[in-house]
């Protein structure tokens, strides 16, 4: 893969030279928007295929293997099928909210794509409150889920949505606290600053045990926040058939589905940025020879491989563990994750003040 930062810079320079600044900015908007939507679909397709393959191998199956080479076109075919399916709206549903809900969910997950750096300098918007922005906007998606659950006029959907509400709101806490413990070290919410601070080593290595604990808690919390098994109580197919999206069909269902996978991608990329150095290559202290070799691998590959590793871990969870019950889910958050992450934040602050980190 080419190094992406030079491409963006050259496009920017070319646009500014050819058109007047307003038009150039407008064109950049269009290009970025198209790229974001394109990325969105590609991500959805790739991740669904990955999930199906990972689950298949864990379940001693082959998984999709008929459409395309090794089943690579299977998800494309499925999307086509979903696109031509009839999108039913139940009779008793609140039609406006029912049709709005999937778009809210998907718009929110698209919004969070903005501050994610896919490579060195390849970022839509490097805002100064990047991490805060991601965690703030991602918590809005619960509104879409609640809306879908209520508007469906279905008891299963309602139960699923209410569960999801309780779940996302509470797991937001420990996710936020574990993000904070890294912010304590970096002293900045800006994503480019966070990545730059990891040039001589990733925070998961530099931050001693508190960073590892924060990482584990973060992974658990985002698994819960994205409604993934073992925390998939909002959809819990053996209890609530399909939870909040029971009544959705066709493309509206596909939007929920897509949003789920993009949310996983974003959550994992946040994890990669905070703990695994984002696009930063693996650098170990002052081994200049080793560091130099690592620099040869393009930054985009570093980023994508880290993110996909984390996604794999989350998928690994899903295909191994049973689902928690709703009260156990909240117990886990309030009795275990929250106290531990608070204590951990305290410890991390101590580490930061005393300068014990590398």
């Amino acid at each position, binding site marked *: 893969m080419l190094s992406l930062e030079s491409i963006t810079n050259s496009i920017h320079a070319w646009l500014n030279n050819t058109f007047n600044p307003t038009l150039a900015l407008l064109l950049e908007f269009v290009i970025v928007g198209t790229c974001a939507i394109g990325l969105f679909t590609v991500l959805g397709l790739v991740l669904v295929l990955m999930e199906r393959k990972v689950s298949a191998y864990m379940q001693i*199956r082959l998984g999709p293997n008929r459409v395309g080479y090794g089943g690579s076109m299977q998800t494309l075919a499925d999307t086509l099928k979903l696109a031509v399916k009839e999108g039913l709206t139940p009779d008793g549903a609140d039609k406006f909210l029912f049709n709005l809900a999937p778009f809210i969910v998907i718009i929110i997950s698209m919004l969070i794509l903005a501050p994610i750096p896919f490579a060195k300098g390849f970022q839509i918007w490097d805002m100064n409150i990047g991490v805060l922005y991601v965690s703030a906007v991602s918590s809005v998606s619960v509104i879409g889920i609640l809306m879908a659950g209520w508007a469906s006029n279905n008891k299963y959907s309602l139960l699923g949505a209410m569960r999801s509400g309780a779940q996302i709101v509470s797991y937001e806490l420990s996710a936020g606290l574990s993000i904070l413990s890294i912010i304590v070290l970096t002293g900045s919410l800006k994503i480019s600053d966070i990545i730059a601070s990891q040039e001589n080593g990733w925070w998961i290595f530099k931050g001693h045990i508190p960073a590892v604990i924060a990482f584990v808690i973060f992974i658990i919390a985002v698994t819960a926040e994205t409604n993934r098994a073992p925390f998939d109580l909002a959809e819990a197919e053996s209890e609530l058939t399909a939870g909040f999206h029971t009544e959705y069909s066709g493309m509206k269902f596909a939007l929920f589905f897509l949003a789920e996978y993009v949310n996983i991608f974003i959550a994992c990329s946040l994890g990669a940025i905070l703990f695994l150095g984002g696009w930063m290559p693996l650098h170990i202290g002052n081994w200049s020879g080793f560091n130099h070799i690592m620099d040869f691998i393009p930054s985009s590959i570093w980023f994508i491989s880290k993110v996909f590793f984390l996604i794999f871990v989350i998928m690994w969870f899903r295909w*191994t563990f049973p689902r928690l019950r709703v009260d156990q889910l909240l117990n886990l958050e309030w009795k275990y994750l929250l106290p531990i992450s608070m204590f951990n934040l305290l410890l991390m602050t101590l580490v930061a003040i005393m300068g014990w980190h590398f």
Partner: protein
Amino acid sequence: MFLSDYISEIFNATKSLLKGMRRTGYYFTHHKQIITQQYPDVKQILPERFRGEVVMTHDEKNEHACTGCTACELACPNGTIKIITKFDILPDGKKKKAIDTFIYHLELCTMCNLCIEACPTDAIKMAQNFEHSVYDRSQLTKTLNKPGSKIKEGIE
């Protein structure tokens, strides 16, 4: 004491979860364990006792062993088999009972093997065919004796 219990609880819980992940991780990396059969491409050879459908055995001279005794028809719990008999005129002028048509309703058959057990001359047997789907239900009603076939010599 509370704190040590709390920590050991978390430790044991994590350990049990990691155990499970090791198991799925093992299968994720060991692709030789995969048991999927690519069905229409690779067909499994079914054992000779597999009960797929009732067929009547005919030899190369187009002769079968069915005397038309209707033992199978009586043994069948669902009325799957219907035998229509006729009377052949033998060369010496005597009449002999023989089958005209052996009708077999595959759509009613439960493959219970009772007709095969009942048959005194082993005229019918179970075939290993299991792909029975057709577009029209009437195709499932089969005539088992081939056209022009007749009973073997020496079977009463």
